[in-house]
């Protein structure tokens, strides 16, 4: 058999030395010709057909970062040349080439497999190695919770590490969830409680992964347990410490639209249901024990130890699951929307808290009012159920920081739907208020989503196709400037509140964590999966899994599905006592030998 190997690049690959790969390909058995068409080539099937005939090729291998974009030219050429069109194979480097040194070697093995006509993924099944039955899950959002429960219900020990003082993640901040509109707390809190009560789950809050060593099947992980300074065991969440605490802090759980004390609990249903001392803002801690300390004195259960120190905990685990989730893109970077300039321009999460029954206005949607802050001792714009007036007109702007070459090019996947949900909440709570929604494409792709979108339109929300260009102030009122593309008009709508559907970005520190674990991220910082299609939750490294938004924006059902999927990988390995090792462990020789073997049988 005579084989031709052709390189066509999209020009998005820096981790592979193509020259080297080409000379390697040239020396492979049966390879008659190797040619480089360079970046973004314009190929003519007729021309290729002539070459196929002249070279008398029976198989073509198209190699490159995304060779699929050029495959059809060769298939067509094979057809013209009267050859078997199924004999065009792809050697895709983008898919399986890790960054760093490994890239070139991997590219070679991919080419080798393609030349021999066997699927790389089949050949590159990593060897197995003995696995420690304990599992570490990093990130206590819905993904982490789901994965933990699945694995623990499977009878295996799980350690769930969460950076903040409570599990629940972003979902715990939400009021309702689309498209069914059932309240997030109602479906999440039981799961949180279940995690807390599960005999197989060790919950480590206020904790962060410091260091990862060891190898697949037996990872050695150092976890820093930041001092909570309140005994989880004894605290009954009586709130006295918070009442007596003199130091007021912006509440991160409420996304900055409310205050809390330095002694606080994120929300009433927090799990573990115990208070936390925010060391960075605690007078006692900051003064080195010189000042304050009143909470410890007043605590009826005497379960506050302000002098508690951080601890380093050593864990040995067989599998690690990454469920670190996301942060919101910094809306202030898009000056023209006036976030940070106009008080009543909110991010999506701020609105979630505002409309949430357990939020600062206990769910009343009002505009901010100017009040003297006890914290800063000066007038500030704050949400206040009493003095705040309900907005008579609200604008919701989609794709803030998403689908934009100047910010993030990707789509954040959830914004369309939660924006529609916001519209519903506004119209439900303020039937007289106008609600305007500005979108580019209405991405209602999930089960029941399209129906939901139609319902929101029917409820009287003004859904406009056209991205808002700017929010300006005209005689004391915010005005939305945009183009209503469908009805051929310029938008010029005065509003009292603007909600920015801000896109998602990888959680702070995710990149660093990826480095510690030795896994790749894509150019936006989302964790790279082993194979986009067939292994969406595995990674290059054996026994390290990704699930949820950390791997790419996702809604709750998809996140939950992935989290459970991860459990399959973990439970499987424990059931048979052996997990997979790193794909990188396979040498080029191994791959060649295996491929050759597969061809023979």
């Amino acid at each position, binding site marked *: 058999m005579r084989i031709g190997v052709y390189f066509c690049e999209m020009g998005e690959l820096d981790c592979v030395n193509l020259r080297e790969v080409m000379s390697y390909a040239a020396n492979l058995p049966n390879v008659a010709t190797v040619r480089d068409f360079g970046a973004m080539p314009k190929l003519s099937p007729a021309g290729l057909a002539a070459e196929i005939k002249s070279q008398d090729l029976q198989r073509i291998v198209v190699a490159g970062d995304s060779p699929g974009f050029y495959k059809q030219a060769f298939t067509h050429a094979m057809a013209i040349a009267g050859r078997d069109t199924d004999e065009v194979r792809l050697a895709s480097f983008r898919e399986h080439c890790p960054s760093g040194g490994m890239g070139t070697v991997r590219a070679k093995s991919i080419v080798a497999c393609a030349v021999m006509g066997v*699927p790389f993924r089949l050949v590159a099944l990593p060897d197995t190695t003995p696995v420690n039955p304990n599992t570490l899950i990093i990130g206590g959002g819905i993904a982490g919770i789901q994965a933990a429960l*699945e694995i623990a219900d499977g009878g295996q020990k799980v350690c769930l590490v969460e950076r903040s003082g409570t599990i629940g993640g972003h979902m715990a901040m939400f009021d309702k969830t689309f498209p069914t509109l059932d309240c997030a*707390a109602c479906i999440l809190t039981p799961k949180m409680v279940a995690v807390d009560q599960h005999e197989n789950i060790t919950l480590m809050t206020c904790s962060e992964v410091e260091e990862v060593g060891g190898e697949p099947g037996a990872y050695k992980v150092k976890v820093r347990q930041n001092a909570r300074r309140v005994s989880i065991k004894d605290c009954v969440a009586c709130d006295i410490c918070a009442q007596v605490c003199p130091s007021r802090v912006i509440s991160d759980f409420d996304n900055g639209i409310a205050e809390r004390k330095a002694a606080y609990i994120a929300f009433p249903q927090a799990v573990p249901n115990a208070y936390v001392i925010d060391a960075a803002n605690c007078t006692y801690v900051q003064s080195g024990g010189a000042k304050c300390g009143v909470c410890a004195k007043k605590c009826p259960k005497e379960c506050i130890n302000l002098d508690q120190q951080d601890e380093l905990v050593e864990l040995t685990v067989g599998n690690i699951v990454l469920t670190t989730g996301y942060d919101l893109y910094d809306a202030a970077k898009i000056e023209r929307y006036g976030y940070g300039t106009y008080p009543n321009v909110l991010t999506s999460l701020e609105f979630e808290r505002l409309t949430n029954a357990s939020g600062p206005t206990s769910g009343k949607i009002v505009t901010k009012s100017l009040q003297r802050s006890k914290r800063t001792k000066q007038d500030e714009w704050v949400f206040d159920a009493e003095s705040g007036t309900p907005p008579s007109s609200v604008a919701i702007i989609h794709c803030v920081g998403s689908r934009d070459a100047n910010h993030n*090019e990707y789509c954040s996947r959830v914004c369309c739907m939660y924006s529609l949900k916001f519209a519903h909440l506004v119209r439900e709570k303020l039937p007289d208020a106008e609600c305007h929604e500005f979108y580019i494409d209405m991405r209602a792709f999930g089960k029941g989503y399209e129906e939901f979108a139609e319902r929101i339109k029917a409820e009287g929300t003004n859904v406009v196709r056209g991205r808002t260009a700017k929010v300006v102030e005209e005689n004391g009122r915010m005005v939305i400037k945009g183009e209503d593309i469908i009805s051929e008009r310029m938008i010029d709508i005065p509003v009292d509140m603007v909600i920015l559907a801000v896109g998602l970005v990888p959680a702070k520190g995710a990149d660093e964590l990826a480095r510690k674990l030795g896994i790749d991220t894509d150019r936006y910082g989302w964790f790279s999966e082993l194979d986009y299609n067939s292994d969406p939750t595995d990674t290059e490294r054996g026994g390290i899994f990704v699930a949820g938004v950390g791997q790419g924006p996702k809604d709750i059902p998809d996140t939950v599905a*992935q989290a459970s999927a991860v*459990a399959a990988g973990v*439970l499987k390995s424990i059931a048979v006592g052996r997990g997979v090792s790193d794909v990188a462990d396979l040498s080029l020789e191994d791959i060649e030998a295996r491929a050759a073997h597969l061809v023979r049988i």
Partner: protein
Amino acid sequence: MDETKQEHRIGVYVCQCGTNIAKMVDCDGVAGEIADMPGVAISRSYKYMCSNPGQEMIIADIKEHDLDRVVVAACSPHMHELTFRKAVSQADLNPYYLEIANIREQCAWVHEDRGQATAKAKDLTVAAVDRVVYQEALEKMSVDMCPNCLVIGGGIAGMTAALDLADAGGRVYLVERTDHLGGQIAHIALTAPYLDSAREIVEERVTRVMRHPKIDIFFESQLTALDGYVGNFQAAIARKGDGAAQTVDVGSVVVATGYKTFDAARIPHYGYGKLPNVITSLELERMLRAGRVETKEGKPPQYVTLIHCVGSRNLEYHSYCSRVCCMAALKYAHEIKSSVPGAYINDVYIDIHAFGKGHEDLYRRTSEANTLFLMYEKNDLPVIRKADPGDDCDMLIEVNESLSGESIEIPADLVVLMVGMEARDDCRELARLVNISVDKDGWFIESHPKLDPVATTTEGIYIAGACQAPKDIPDSVAQARAAAARIMGRIAHGTIEIDAMYSEIDPDKCSGCRICNALCPYVAIEFDPATHKSHVISALCKACGACVAACPSSAIKARGFTDEQIFAQIEGVLG
């Protein structure tokens, strides 16, 4: 009846659910009134009963006030009955000494008059108190969990689930209706958004499945019957043609039957079947595979048009979005362009659903390749007609283009209809066979749309892939794995508890008339000729209660739904 109550110590908890309930129901008021009822030891109202502190409160009270019955007035029992049963049992009280009054979904959320809503909430709670008195201590049974598993469907979802389960050590019976594995992906050349080889995915999965010692494949076969219950199913599998079915014992079932593509001929606008050069995406795949993208006349097309949402997002056909067509269309734009470099590609769409990882990049690339995107309004479908002899094209597509506000005509030599996904014709049949439900579109219903997308209302039956709703490959794979995980968990335990709600026949009352025997859909009632009486095989009984209502000598008792309990509840609601 009050006497019976007197001797009880009932705890009543009215949940405010944040403001969800409190907004329409005076929870404190209800709790206050109930407090005076005979037998009620304690009656409280709280912000979130489902929360940790809420549950702790119940547990503490049970111990402190030694309650023997608990009533929670909150959301639907479908939501939290289990949560609270767990809480109750943690206080060493039988979990079935619990009654839920649904004052949220069926009261607070559906009424507008606070007075009336509060009154109704009270009635419902009172009824629950009346009923709970007659609740009995029930014990769950535990049965063995068979480690074998039945997977229906040999597509990517089915194969993935099968592989995971087999790797974990269980035997897997894989039933495939055709004579090959791979399902829909077997017909696809490349996958969106990265245009990776679909063939390699299939080759890899199929090879592994075929070679796996623990997977038995039944080609051209179908499930004909499923008896038994979670952990102990007997599945009858019959090869097409011959009637003789083979029965296998399995502990769980994964339904991964996938979808079928929409029949484009149903839409008159597109003249599919009449105009020779109007083809479906599947037919295009065939062309691409053969390497020849050309018109019926055998010429390379100069103008190619891709039409999105064929059968999807439309009032007359399917209201839902088929989720994968947008990306597939963009993929085709590139494939056609690379096969016929001179071709002009027009893409007629409603919204571009480029929501996933890498999707937006593909969309951008497609634009950069000079693909012309033309937008039409939902339900204002384009119309395809033959061009005039003079024209430089075969067909003309009339569209009211939204982005320009013009009504335009698009020249076309080849039109590709992006046909959407549809539930398989036999979905209802299969649903009945394995005892799960389907939604209005024929997709299988998951037990919870958000938190449990793989389980179903029937224990031991799981759904994966596009049979639950349209899905792309990664999402199908994830869901298949999720199903596998759930089953592995079950297998690891070795045994499973089955619900304590089932029917019992009181031998003293049974007249042996055998009316019930025939009635039971699960053949759970056996007649014992020796004693001349019938009895229930509790593990098979699914507690529908059909027999109970039918028994002429009221000898059958539906545990958890006895006549006394329901009578009491009736009296309760009628105040």
